[in-house]
């Protein structure tokens, strides 16, 4: 036994609430307030994980978010949260944690043999070693052996993560002395303030470092400040990490709850951001500096003061700066035998009591296998130790500042990058800004709050911390393996290798060696790596520079970003007003262009049901719910000129009460949408566009209205959702409607094909348009959406006498294809011009301007060998062609495409397959046969006119 829980003390733990949880199958006991890491240390568990590549045993390094080693998967047999940092995850009763990258456990990992082969697998080995015969042969095994935690791909959270939007004047990140002071000053200045902190309790360094503020204890300052903020109504969030600053200073926060609830994502829009994010302690470079038991000195102090855990009995504290003196002193006072190894040559006044100080020496190597057993100094002195606490200096946490495009400035005296020129709307305070003493910390906090200073700046009245750092970077040609990046198994030799192979840019260094990658993103390792690269290449540290800081600062569960947007809410569908009625008729629903619509009815076998619907629709009468059809009203004195400009076809000549079919083009001439335009009166039109195109057409109409015609001349209103459209189609359509009574004459003289009439049904106005997408006599009846149900019921009832059939969208597709009616985007593509579809008139005759006009007269538009819209017939008895199959031309041994099949169905009315396609020069080739190739099979089809049924159009009037 070496690490242990002391009998008393521990500001964070509640000894009246013991708990136990499982780690790698062993029971670990602790108290409420423990993290998984502090409980593991209290139970003297040294090995908590295996390294990424070599499967080296690794122990707990730190006490916070920077932890590179102590990662655990939470959640038992099916891990729910992989790669959680044991140092920030609260211990709780019954929790099941597993070490990562270790089989069966961290203590007895069967891949540990890999470490003996380490000299054969240095950085980038896989680029060189596994080239023959093929990297992909080795890749699966190598990938299986490398890596960290395990994800259960099938797992979904029981409840979605909450997502909260929040606005405030001042957001303070970090509740250490700087953050607390800044938040208090911001509050006293009248700003709405938010304070967030990634630790379970506020205080930062004040929770374990010495300090006296305004003559009182640091703990009292923390408690009173938080209480004052809460009393003033300012949110204070603990266990909450500000993981990213995005455009226009949107700050992302991820809040952990310390129980089974999923994390909460906060999107905060502050007017001003104060970054009081502190600093992270760096390791010291010596051989085997990754052995379990070697940890951050500040973490050792934190575990002692917060959790009453003494990390060892015989501890070597190694440092290159002043901050470890307080650590050595506290560990000795708690009963450990402490030797302080200070690499600085100068005499340090005030050696701590009961601590043996060795100055001017550094550790050359550590020894031990599964945990550290001692160290050898650079003069050969051997010291026994069961724990080594090291401080290689402090790296200010500038990630968020850099994400917000802040630039760093190298500070030689501090051996660190500090925030450089200020970024608008962001200030940096405390250790993140390079402050060391509490007095400096409070001074930077006071400056960080925007506006005129108000309130009282806290005063440090106790002893003050000093920096005194003399950099101790890894050096070239060191003996043994000096670990730079624990998480990615990068040694000093790997950095030297990268330099030798000319990967000297810091970004290349990162990618080649993986230095600074993975879940910790090199929070403890980056600076040492680039300092070594600077040394090797004869540059200064700022000349080498840092890699780009990108969000997130720490890993954020995808569930937080997802929130409620999963399942049905991932991409919500639009629904028909009559959906429930259709479900009552066993409608089988599918999504079509964002709308959920009945594909067919009856729940029978799909193909047979669809064929049956399409056949019966031709025999008597069909009822179809066409409510998704676009209904965009264009109103105003310039409405006629407007629709003329919007449409390819001349529309201003349309008489009130009449309908006309037309194309809308894009400015490049390509057919963008098609549909019926209805003229209600002189200044009022209804644009009926494709169901899935309504939003795009509406936006286009608005653009031309605002940009060319002006608000006063035209008004546009999208009424698609307001109105339901019920279609009655077939030879008996008129007879059926006459029994229903729509309050208008259905006589062909009064309501001919392509006319519109206003009627009334059950006191509700209806619009009846005699237009057809089936080729049969059809009536589209539009009515207020919330009044559609009784009308539909009435049509159903009246239909009984005519053997009326409900048809879904699939049958409608067959009916329209029999007639050669196109669906834009299916029978056309991004190159189809209107004359490719056989509509040449407006191009030839129109004199006034319309959208896309000039593009119809380009060299490309006038080519004789364009793809043109045709029908394709196959011999009777054969199966339908495959949609997407290409018409081919044999050119020597090569096959060349001369177009493709766009729609293909079995036509029940004709008793043979029908197809539509775009075929090169197709319009002039009716009667020719073409070879159609699909997946290697070649068939023959005959080019025909698109319309296969009733070419004369008699059925429209039957």
């Amino acid at each position, binding site marked *: 036994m070496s690490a242990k829980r002391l009998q008393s003390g521990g500001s964070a733990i509640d000894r009246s609430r013991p708990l136990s949880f499982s780690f790698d199958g062993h029971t670990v006991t602790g108290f409420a307030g423990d993290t998984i890491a502090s409980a593991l240390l209290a139970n003297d568990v040294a090995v908590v994980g295996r390294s990424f590549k070599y499967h080296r045993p690794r122990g707990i390094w730190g006490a916070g978010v920077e932890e590179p080693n102590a990662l655990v998967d939470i959640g038992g047999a099916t891990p729910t949260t992989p790669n959680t940092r044991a140092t920030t995850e609260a211990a709780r009763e019954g929790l099941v944690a597993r070490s990562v990258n270790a089989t069966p456990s961290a203590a007895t990992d069967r891949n540990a043999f890999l470490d003996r082969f380490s000299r054969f697998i240095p950085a980038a080995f896989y680029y060189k070693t596994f080239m023959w015969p093929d990297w992909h042969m080795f890749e699966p095994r190598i990938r299986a052996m490398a890596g960290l935690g395990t994800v259960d791909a099938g797992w979904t959270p029981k409840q979605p993560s909450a997502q909260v939007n929040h606005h405030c004047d001042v957001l303070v990140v970090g509740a250490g002395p700087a953050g607390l002071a800044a938040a208090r000053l911001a509050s006293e200045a009248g700003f709405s303030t938010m304070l967030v902190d990634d630790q379970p309790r506020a205080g930062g360094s004040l929770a374990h470092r010495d300090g006296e503020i305004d003559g009182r204890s640091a703990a009292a300052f923390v408690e009173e400040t938080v209480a004052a903020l809460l009393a003033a109504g300012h949110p204070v969030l603990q266990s909450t990490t500000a993981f990213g600053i*995005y*455009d*226009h200073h949107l700050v992302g926060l991820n809040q952990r709850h310390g129980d089974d609830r999923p994390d909460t994502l906060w999107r905060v829009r502050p007017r001003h951001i104060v970054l009081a994010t502190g600093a992270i302690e760096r390791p010291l470079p010596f051989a085997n500096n990754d052995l379990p038991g070697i940890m951050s000195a500040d973490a050792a102090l934190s575990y002692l003061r917060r959790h009453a855990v003494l990390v060892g009995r015989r501890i070597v504290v190694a440092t290159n700066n002043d901050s470890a003196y307080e650590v050595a002193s506290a560990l000795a006072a708690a009963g450990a035998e402490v030797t302080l190894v200070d690499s600085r040559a100068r005499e340090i006044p005030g050696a701590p009591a009961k601590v043996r100080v060795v100055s001017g020496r550094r550790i050359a190597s550590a020894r031990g296998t599964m945990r550290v057993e001692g160290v050898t100094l650079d003069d050969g002195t051997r010291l026994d130790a069961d724990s080594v606490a090291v401080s290689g200096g402090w790296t200010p946490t500038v990630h968020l500042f850099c994400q917000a495009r802040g630039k760093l400035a190298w500070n030689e005296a501090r051996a660190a990058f500090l925030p450089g020129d200020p970024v608008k709307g962001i200030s940096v305070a405390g250790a993140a800004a390079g402050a060391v003493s509490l007095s400096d910390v409070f001074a930077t906090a006071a400056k960080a709050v925007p506006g005129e200073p108000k309130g009282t700046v806290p005063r440090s009245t106790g002893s003050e911390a000093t920096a005194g750092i003399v950099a101790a970077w890894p050096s070239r040609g060191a003996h043994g393996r000096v670990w730079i990046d624990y998480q990615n198994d990068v040694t000093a030799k790997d950095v030297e290798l990268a330099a030798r192979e000319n990967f000297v840019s810091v970004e290349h260094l990162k990618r080649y060696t993986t230095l600074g990658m993975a879940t910790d993103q090199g929070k403890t390792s980056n600076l040492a790596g680039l300092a070594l690269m600077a040394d090797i290449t004869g540059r200064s540290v700022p000349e080498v520079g840092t890699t780009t800081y990108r969000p997130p600062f720490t890993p954020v569960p995808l569930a937080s970003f997802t929130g409620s947007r999963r399942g049905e809410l991932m991409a919500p569908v639009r629904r028909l007003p009559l959906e429930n009625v259709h479900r009552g008729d066993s409608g089988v629903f599918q999504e079509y262009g964002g709308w959920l619509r009945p594909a067919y009815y009856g729940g029978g076998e799909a193909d047979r049901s669809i064929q049956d619907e399409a056949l019966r629709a031709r025999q008597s009468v069909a009822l179809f719910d066409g409510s998704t059809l676009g209904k965009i009203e264009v109103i105003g004195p310039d409405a006629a000129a407007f629709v003329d400009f919007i449409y390819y076809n001349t529309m201003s000549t349309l008489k009130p009460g009449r309908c006309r079919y037309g194309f809308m083009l894009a*400015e490049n001439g390509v057919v963008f949408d098609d549909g019926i335009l209805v003229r209600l009166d002189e200044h009022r039109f209804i644009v009926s566009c494709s169901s899935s195109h309504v939003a795009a057409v*509406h*936006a286009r109409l608005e*653009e031309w209205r*605002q940009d060319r015609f002006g608000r006063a001349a035209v008004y546009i209103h999208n009424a698609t959702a307001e109105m339901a459209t019920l279609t009655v189609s077939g030879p008996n359509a008129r007879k059926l409607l006459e029994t229903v009574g729509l309050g208008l004459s259905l006589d062909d003289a009064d309501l001919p094909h392509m006319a519109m009439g206003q009627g009334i049904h059950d006191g509700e106005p209806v619009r009846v348009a005699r237009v057809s997408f089936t080729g049969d006599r059809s009536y589209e009846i539009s009515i207020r959406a919330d009044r559609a149900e009784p009308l539909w019921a009435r049509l159903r009832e009246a239909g009984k006498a005519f053997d009326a059939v409900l048809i879904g969208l699939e049958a409608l597709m067959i009916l329209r294809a029999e007639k050669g009616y196109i669906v834009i985007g299916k029978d056309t593509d991004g190159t189809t011009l209107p004359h490719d579809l056989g509509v040449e008139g407006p191009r030839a005759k129109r004199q006034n*301007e319309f959208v896309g006009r000039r593009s119809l007269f*380009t060299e490309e538009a006038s080519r004789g060998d364009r793809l043109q819209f045709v029908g394709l017939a196959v011999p009777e008895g054969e199966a339908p062609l495959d949609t997407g199959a290409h018409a081919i031309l044999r050119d020597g041994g090569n096959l060349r495409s001369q177009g493709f099949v766009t729609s293909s169905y079995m036509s029940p009315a004709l008793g043979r397959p029908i197809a539509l396609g775009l075929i090169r020069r197709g319009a002039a080739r009716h009667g020719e046969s073409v070879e159609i190739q699909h997946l290697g099979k070649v068939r023959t089809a005959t080019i025909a006119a698109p319309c296969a049924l009733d070419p004369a159009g008699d059925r429209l009037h039957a």
Partner: protein
Amino acid sequence: MQLFPCPFCGPRDETEFHYGGDAGNARPDGADVPIERWANYLHMRGNPKGVAREVWVHMNCSEFFVMERDTVTHEVLSSTALDGGHAQ
């Protein structure tokens, strides 16, 4: 996520907006517009580094407007409705 000022609705998330092209890209009318001119109108974009004048539309209210913004810093400099109104 950027905040764009809609002249009608005020500052809103960028996801509510669509880009509508360079401002001032006037449409040449006529079937006989020189083809180079038409091609410029259709395809050529300034893509400036720094201050850009662009047409955007706020999809929620359908308002098209001209926004000046810096493509490097993402700072929004102004937003003006097509008929000259300004963001509140």
